[in-house]
């Protein structure tokens, strides 16, 4: 049996590995079967042309699936839709969250009450709450159109007119992204040294100046981090879209997103190779964001 001594004279035998291996066995099996293997297999499948699961047969091995998606106008439009959605939702929710977090941080009373209200959407099923938004957006009896009518505006056919579908999805997306964003910004705010504020007060600084000259710069690392985490999660938009339009990507199939395209190719068309190629593209985009995230974190580490 092999024996080996470390620098600290600890003896290493097979037994050294046996116990940790046993303890982590259930976890490792799960990770290997449902994370590591599927991860590498996704690359493999993406190169198989006309891949069929049941027979495990494919007609060729190459880049055909990638060529297919990159020349498919639906896929290209799904990328643009996703990018538009990400930019709108991430920016708006970040600005709103920043204002709300700063205000929440400065109120002495009713913290618990406000937190409960602002954070509630975080724990609720998008399938259920998407349905509620569908009801709010309803053309004939929806509350949003009723509010519009109070101001004398015409009713808008929110969910059935392609021009408005992106707006609906974004409103829903912003609403559901706010809680997470506010929580992270709030914990960032609470880490700012109160001395800065005391000093600013002594100097007689105005609220707006304190916000732009102290809060925002000191909060920059948190803001950067949240923005990137939100971008990644917004890139994967699916549940809300699926529910809002009753299982379709928009009223006129006009609102494909990357995941919706993947779902369609995989589940409806049974084109596993194409779906996998789409998954790889998604992964590369997320990789880019993660690299960016690490850069941001490194850059601001000195705070």
């Amino acid at each position, binding site marked *: 049996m092999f024996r080996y001594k470390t620098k600290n004279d600890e003896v*290493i035998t097979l037994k050294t590995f046996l116990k*940790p291996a046993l303890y982590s066995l259930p976890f*490792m099996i799960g990770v290997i079967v449902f*994370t590591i293997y599927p991860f590498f297999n996704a690359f493999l499948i993406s190169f198989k042309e006309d891949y069929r699961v049941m027979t495990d047969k494919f007609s060729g091995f190459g880049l055909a699936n990638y060529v297919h998606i990159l020349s498919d106008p639906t896929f290209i439009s799904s990328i643009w839709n996703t990018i538009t959605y990400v930019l709108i939702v991430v920016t708006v929710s970040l600005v709103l969250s920043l204002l709300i977090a700063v205000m929440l941080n400065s109120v002495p009373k009713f913290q618990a009450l406000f937190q409960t209200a602002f954070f509630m959407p975080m724990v609720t099923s998008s399938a259920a709450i998407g*349905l509620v938004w569908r*009801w709010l957006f309803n053309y004939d009896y929806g509350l949003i159109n009723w509010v519009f009518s109070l101001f004398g505006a015409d009713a808008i056919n929110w969910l059935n007119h392609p021009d408005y579908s992106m707006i609906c999805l974004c409103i829903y997306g912003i609403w559901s992204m706010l809680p*997470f964003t506010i929580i*992270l910004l709030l914990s960032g705010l609470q880490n700012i040294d109160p001395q800065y504020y005391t000093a600013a007060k002594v100097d007689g600084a105005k609220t707006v100046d304190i916000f732009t000259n102290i809060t925002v710069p000191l909060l920059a690392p948190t803001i950067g981090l949240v923005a990137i985490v939100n971008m990644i999660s917004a890139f994967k938009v699916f549940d809300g879209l699926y529910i809002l339009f009753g299982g379709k990507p928009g009223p006129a199939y006009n609102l494909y997103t990357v995941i919706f395209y993947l779902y369609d190719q995989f589940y409806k068309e049974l084109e596993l190779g194409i779906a996998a190629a789409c998954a790889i593209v998604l992964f590369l985009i997320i990789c880019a964001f993660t690299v960016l995230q690490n850069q941001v974190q490194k850059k601001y580490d000195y705070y």
Partner: protein
Amino acid sequence: MKRQEQIKRILLYTILGVGAFIMIFPFFWMIITSLKTGAEANSVPPTFIPKKLIFENYVYAFKVAPFAKYFMNSVIVTISCVILTMFNTILAAFAFSKMKFPGRDWIFAGLITMMMVPFEMLIITNYTTIVKWGLYDTIIALIIPFVSSIFYTYILRNFFLSVPDSLYYSAKVDGASDWQFLWQVLVPIAKPSLVTIALLNAIACWNSFLWSILVINSQGKRTLPFGLFAFTNETGIRYEVLMAGATIVVIPMILLFLFCRKSIVTGVSRGGLKG
């Protein structure tokens, strides 16, 4: 000056109040609509407090669709998922923190890089695996892919690492085995972290949607979110009934949130929800 402060404060509370109102309004509207008759739900102008509170929509929902069954399925899936995940996570976090073996930190660093792989990228192969194992359209298919979470293990491992090793060695000197030390010393200390992980996991399980529409086919095996979606196609669009269904799906998580808000918020601020 004092007066200015007061105006500022009132303005602050007003803005926050309006914001908070908008955030919870969908929930309020969901519950209110579910307690109205069909005629009142579709009336213009809408009523904000039902003329008469009725519970027929709930009765109807339970009668037309097997919501009781969906509810049971969701409970079974969530509880099994949480228990198995906790078991796997505790054991693995212990092995990767307190036990010493060459290459430990390298292996774990490798696992951490897998955290950024989106679940959506894995569904193709996982679906195939489930079908090949004969688990398609079973409750088990909703559970096993999720019980080995690198993310939760990472969080718990960090906590275990922060517990001084001297505790481990003194327990050993006292004759405690690894197993005893883990369950009688380490787990009780880690209780707050464990509660947070369990809560985040339960929320994610309860709300899981995409995976369940992929691997579940028969009505009797649906969980609540999928059941609710299918319900919209089955009953036609009657919003007062649909809102009753939505309320059934959402209420357990709202209760959980109201009672455990602090743990959940701490967990989220430390690294976020899955997704």
